[in-house]
């Protein structure tokens, strides 16, 4: 690999993993969740990580997002090697560079939708100024939840909750947005809406989106599909 291609790679790759390995337990009980993964995630695209349950796709996402440390190998996100970061530095890195949408338990039940959206800014100790509020409103507009900002999560439908979660993930303009089975709890119509929003985030806002899913239909919305089985990319 020459220097130029490496530079070119860095420009187009949002995150990469090299020889990523994760094992749990010891001896007979040892489980190999990841067996040496090499992966580059292209910038500004919508990528799906697919595979049956137990294939290691969630573990891969956790390692790529810095939620869990790998047993071996390296992860680089936005030019930073995550393995070199202590827990606090890693947390702050996540706060600034990575956004998340989970399957469920996505929103804090005691905060309103609006408060949930600006939560990542608040965690970073930033003042919620007019610009931030404007951005939150814009995102809520795009995602169609602008009229629900004053409501608690319990008063929102599943699809609305997920769209609020996407707005929250986008508020920090992260380098990488991870979505873990975002449509797992939704009916097909709502699923389609949410997936459409994720695709538009990539197409229109240039957002890198990585989605973990086991649904073939969901993968159809993405630009790339990475399929996993038994801890390997197939």
């Amino acid at each position, binding site marked *: 690999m020459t220097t130029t291609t490496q530079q070119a790679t860095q420009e187009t790759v949002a995150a990469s993993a090299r020889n990523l390995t994760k094992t749990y337990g010891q001896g007979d009980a040892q489980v190999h969740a990841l067996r040496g993964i090499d992966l580059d995630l292209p910038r500004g695209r919508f990528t799906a990580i697919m595979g049956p349950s137990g294939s290691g796709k969630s573990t891969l996402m956790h390692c790529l997002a810095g939620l*869990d440390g790998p047993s071996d190998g390296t992860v680089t996100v936005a030019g930073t090697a995550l393995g070199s970061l202590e827990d606090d530095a890693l947390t702050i890195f996540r706060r600034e560079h990575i956004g998340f949408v989970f399957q469920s338990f996505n929103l804090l039940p005691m905060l309103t939708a609006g408060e949930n959206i600006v939560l990542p800014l608040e*965690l970073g100790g930033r003042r*919620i100024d007019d610009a931030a509020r404007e951005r939150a409103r814009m995102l809520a507009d795009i995602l169609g939840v602008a009229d629900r900002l004053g409501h608690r999560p319990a008063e929102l439908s599943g699809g609305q909750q997920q769209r609020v979660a996407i707005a929250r993930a986008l508020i920090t303009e992260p380098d990488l947005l991870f979505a*873990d089975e975002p449509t797992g709890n939704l009916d097909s119509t709502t699923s389609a809406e949410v997936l459409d929003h994720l695709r538009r985030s990539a197409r229109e806002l240039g957002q890198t989106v990585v989605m973990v899913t086991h649904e073939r239909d969901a993968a159809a919305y993405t630009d790339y599909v990475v399929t996993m089985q038994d801890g390997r990319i197939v």
Partner: protein
Amino acid sequence: MRTVFLASLRTHIRRYVAAAVAVAVAVAFVLVVGVLTSGAHSGLMDGLGAPYRNADHVVSAAGWPSSELDPKAAIAFTERHGENAAATGRATLPARANGRRISETTVGPIATSEEWRWQELSSGRFPARTGEAVVDVYFALAENFAVGDRVRIGEGAAARDVQVVGLVESPSPPAQASMYVTWPQLLQWRDHLHLNAVAVRGEVGQLPEGTKAQSPEGFAAERLTYVQNRVNTLSVMLLLFVGIALFVSVLVISNTFSILFAQRLRDFALLRCIGATRRQVVRSVRREAAVVGVLASLAGTLVGVGLGYGLIALIDALTPTALMGAAELPTLWLLGGFAVGLVVTMVASWLPTRRVVRVSPLAALRADAAVDVHTATGLVRPALAAILLVTGLALLGVAMVQDSTALMVAGGGSVFAGVLLFGPVLVPRLIGITGALLGPAGRLATKNAVRDPRRTATTTASLLVGVTLTTAVLTGMATWRSSLDEQIGRDHPIDVALTSPKEPVTTDLLNRVRHTPGVEQAIPVDGAVARVAGLDKPIPVVTAPAAAHVARDGGAFARVEPGKIRIDSEAFGKNLSLRPGDRVTVRVGDRRAQLQVAVGTGWGPAGVVAPETLATLTDAPEPHAIWIRASSGADPARLGSDLDELADPVGATIENGLRTWESLDQQLGIYTWSALGLLGIAVVIALIGIANTLGLSVLERVREHAMLRALGLTRRQLRRMLATEAVLLSLVATLLGTMIGVGFAWVGYETIVKQALSDATMHVPWLSLGVVVLIASLAGLLAAVLPARRAARVTPAAGLSLD
């Protein structure tokens, strides 16, 4: 159902630990009181009978405790029986040793024959003849006595020198004294001697009038009942605090069960789904509570018994005069304590288990059922709370008007119950207000804290109880204290008064007094020696325009109208024949004046008159007294004896008012600290409760915390968030408790204190109350340590994949 019961016990028993600790602490408290009470009883029994163990009869006053033995008759009676009788009693006499004056020495008899001797030698030997004495070890320790010291007992012609030949232990309250001398020696002070009983061997013969003869056992039993009543009163008081601790435990346990059952509601629903009846589910849950109750009560019983005996050993080691016997294991207390623990646990779990009954099987099938355990607050609660509040306030109002303690207690209880019931509405709002002051950083914590109003309210209620009572005690004591200060200021306006009835005091003496450590200010008081009709000795008649500089009452006692003379009614003993309003002739040399008598106390044997009056009696007043204001923190006994050293050689006497202050200080100090210490137990249980609620909430929120961590909340921020939540809970409970406590204290002041001390004023000890708030907040912080550490340990990935 049995498998389910055992399995859920295995899974959940660790979550009951904090609740179990709360029960155990309360049960242990009961047992400690029990062991101490029975220890005190057996100690009293052992000590009390000791002087009379070899007697056939004990002669004492027939009408005791309202009448006492006539000393003369009792002495004659004892003398008549010779070797076959021994008296117990004591004489209170002044004493000097090692060049120091010892105030309030009690001297009792010690027999030379072994069969009558009940004191136990701890060093040296027993006195064999006149001129020898033994000293009680505890008194020796306090007054720094050693074997070989010489002590002068008595004053004037009755003064005798004795040598300390040994130290003894003398654990028998009716016969106890600080020093013991032989009977013949003791009779040298027969005028001062009070006897309480005479032990007789053989025939009693003719009894002196107004006395009765009893068997030694009968006598000991009679005295014991009297002292025991006091021990029992004390036990009842202690049990009151036990009751408070138990109440707080009920709140903590009930909250624990509520939270745990809420978390497991899905499990219960699932059980219902697969065919368990309501009764089966509830029975299984109640059995769990019973197991927790049994284990906790057992642990509490063991700890309490251990602590009780440990305390007895400690008390024995620290204070040799204390009467703590080896207590028998108090079976009744054991059973009682255990039963109380079990009952409390069962009662506290009753309401929460009822909620389990109501769960519908469908709840298991709903997706996110168990997450949001928000309980609604109905209308019944606030309505009942309002009724209780209004009734209580009305009762308190009436109590203040009618000075009725019973109404006050009823009203206070009603108001407090109202506040507790109102908690789910009130406390979250208060937390919201307090949290708003923290800014955005504390917002998550604030929202977390008020998530479930009922849980929040119960958690804070437990602390509220302790803090309210603590505040009421502190404020009540401070008010009482400041009122007493005023009164004592009037009764003892001068800390130490040095009065010279013959010669004027010299400038040299004044200077030496001023340089004595502990003297803040000393003023010379001018006057002249006068003969006052009705007093057998001449006294200085003085005037003190400068008294305000040293007097505690602002010098009011020394402002006497012309034509009057103010006499210290206590300085002349009981024989003072002058009464306020009497007209007496006062003579200085050949000048005389007719003066009207007024009285007061606290400045010694001198008459205070107006400057004009003194001018008519003498042209050349000379200082005849020095009035001293002690610096704060001066040791009264030491200052007294130091000044006495200066006064004695020039024939002056000392009036020490400071000692009264000291004993008052000590007494109030003991009351306040005991009450605080005992309430402390309830507060500790409450804090265990806060830690518990927080710990259980943390378990409930693992997913949420994992998500927050994923979103960028650092470990430190997470810990801080939980700490803030705990501090908010404890702070609000403390602030609310302080307000209610001060309110209660005010009512108490209006109802009780004002009645007892007419011109008392309310005094709120803001500093102490501030310290309470601070300590409670810090304790809240402490309560968050374990839950916060636990929460921060979970990695985001682990928390997210948890189901």
